[in-house]
């Protein structure tokens, strides 16, 4: 495992369906990884895509993802003993400290947050978690986190479970009720949701994990840059609220693989 930036070929050791269209793959990867960091996952002959670490143990690491296009569909089909290439971990990861953290996940964002929540709890930090999904069938990691004594709130867009509406709206409610309780907010999910959260969090420090199109992940190609040259692959993917407030494009624009600006759908 000499070169962190050259794919390390490893076998899928286990896989499981977490919810409708959501799958976890586990594989041997004996390198230290922090919650909030991510890998580049090479699916030979298909693509190489960024994926947050969703399971962390000594030797085994995991990713949890939604099937959305070619690469994730190819990943979805993989079975134990199939081989993938991993490079990383990349990025900064979350700062996990304070007394009580509010975690707000939208969609697959909970895959990124789960290891952070586990770490917070293991450090004795009270953790309130908002899991938002389109519909009840797409909620996952609820059991996993309950087992860790996180206080969980659910929202679904269609109201099929829990609060009807967006995770950001539910979070607003929670914050409105007991704002003074939280000294940190950590979020991962659709950017418009995170942007709303940023607007409502007031002076509670916020950390948000961003997604941008990734190529090199070693800070050279510039593909992932936001604001004044902040590289999501190096200085991110986790940015604090203060930084995000200065980034015009946050929640509004991202760039496609050609470098062209694309409006982020709300």
């Amino acid at each position, binding site marked *: 495992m000499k070169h962190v930036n050259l794919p390390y070929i490893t076998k899928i050791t286990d896989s499981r369906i977490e919810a409708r269209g959501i799958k976890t793959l586990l594989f041997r990867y004996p390198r230290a990884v922090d919650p909030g960091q991510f890998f580049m996952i090479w699916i030979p002959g298909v693509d190489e895509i960024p994926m947050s670490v969703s399971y962390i143990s000594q030797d085994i690491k995991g990713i949890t993802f939604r099937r959305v296009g070619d690469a994730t569909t190819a990943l979805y089909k993989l079975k134990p003993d199939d081989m993938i290439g991993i490079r990383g971990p990349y990025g900064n990861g979350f700062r996990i400290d304070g007394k009580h953290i509010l975690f707000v996940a939208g969609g697959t964002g909970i895959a990124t947050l789960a290891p952070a929540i586990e770490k917070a709890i293991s450090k004795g930090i009270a953790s309130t978690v908002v899991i938002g999904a389109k519909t009840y069938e797409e909620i996952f990691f609820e059991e996993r986190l309950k087992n860790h004594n996180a206080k969980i709130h659910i929202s679904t867009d269609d109201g099929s479970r829990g609060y009807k509406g967006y995770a950001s709206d539910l979070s607003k409610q929670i914050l409105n009720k007991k704002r003074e309780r939280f000294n940190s907010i950590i979020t991962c999910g659709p950017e418009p949701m995170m942007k709303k959260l940023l607007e409502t969090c007031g002076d509670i420090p916020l950390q948000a994990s961003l997604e941008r199109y990734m*190529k090199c992940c070693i*800070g050279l190609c510039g593909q992932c840059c936001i604001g004044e040259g902040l590289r999501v692959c190096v200085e991110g993917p986790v940015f604090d609220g203060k930084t995000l407030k200065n980034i015009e494009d946050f929640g509004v624009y991202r760039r496609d693989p050609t470098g062209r600006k694309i409006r982020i759908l709300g």
Partner: protein
Amino acid sequence: MDISTTISSIKLKNPTILASGIMDEDAGSMQRIIKRGGVGAVVTKSIGLTARRGYPNPTVIELEHGILNAMGLPNPGIDHYGEEIEKIKHLQTPIIGSIYGANPDEFIELSRRMEDLDVDALELNLSCPHTKKYGLEIGCDPYLVRKITCAVKENVSIPVFIKLSPNVTSIIELAKMAEEAGADAIVAINTVKAMKINIDLRRPILSNKIGGYSGKAIMPIGVRCVYEIAENIQIPIIGVGGITTGEDAIEYFMAGASAVQIGSGVYYRGIDIFKTVCSEIENWMKKHGYKKLSDLIGVAHI
């Protein structure tokens, strides 16, 4: 200590330039390099007439001794890139517009458009080693190099730099052709054609299979190219390939370069590399009793 340098009519406050393709896809990243990095100039990403996605990933990997990439010239196209250039003009740092095309007409069109955007100079990328039809096929034919250089020179009045590839039998011949055709400077070198195979998966790692090798490993190749070119032409040379320290840059100056570009070094030493390299150059010059950069240029030709 005077480390300013001049390439054609372009004055640089220091001799370090951001190489094309590194942190230059949007205004923000170039802005960061200019403000925090303290570069003498930036080269834009190589821009074409229309948008290109480039190749699927993997497009960049780190090897034991260098970096291997096959981006496939992704770029938003000249129509969209204009606004990025607009946004960094006020920073008072020279902007060198890099362009690539498939034929002289495309180069002419792109040069005019770039000139209209008010860039300080043009860099013609005749040397991308892994994009079919663009770059290498053009850059290794001396007559095409001459034709394109002439065509562009006739159509713009800003200085024109020609970026050459080391993947040719004689880089000297190409540099001579470019000079003859009126080029204002030569940029050498682009990446070296190379490949990494993953033996577990029995396949090249890059989706394009072949890529361009940059970073530390290629520095002796770049120095050789600059040295050879310097023995044969009069116009200035910008050295690039594997530079990570002030001493590396000095080696290029002594080989004949009037300025240097840094690409992969941003990975090895971070965004601050330009500043760091400049202060290493200054310290070395101080220690060795040099007063100005021009006293170093070409002195290894003995």
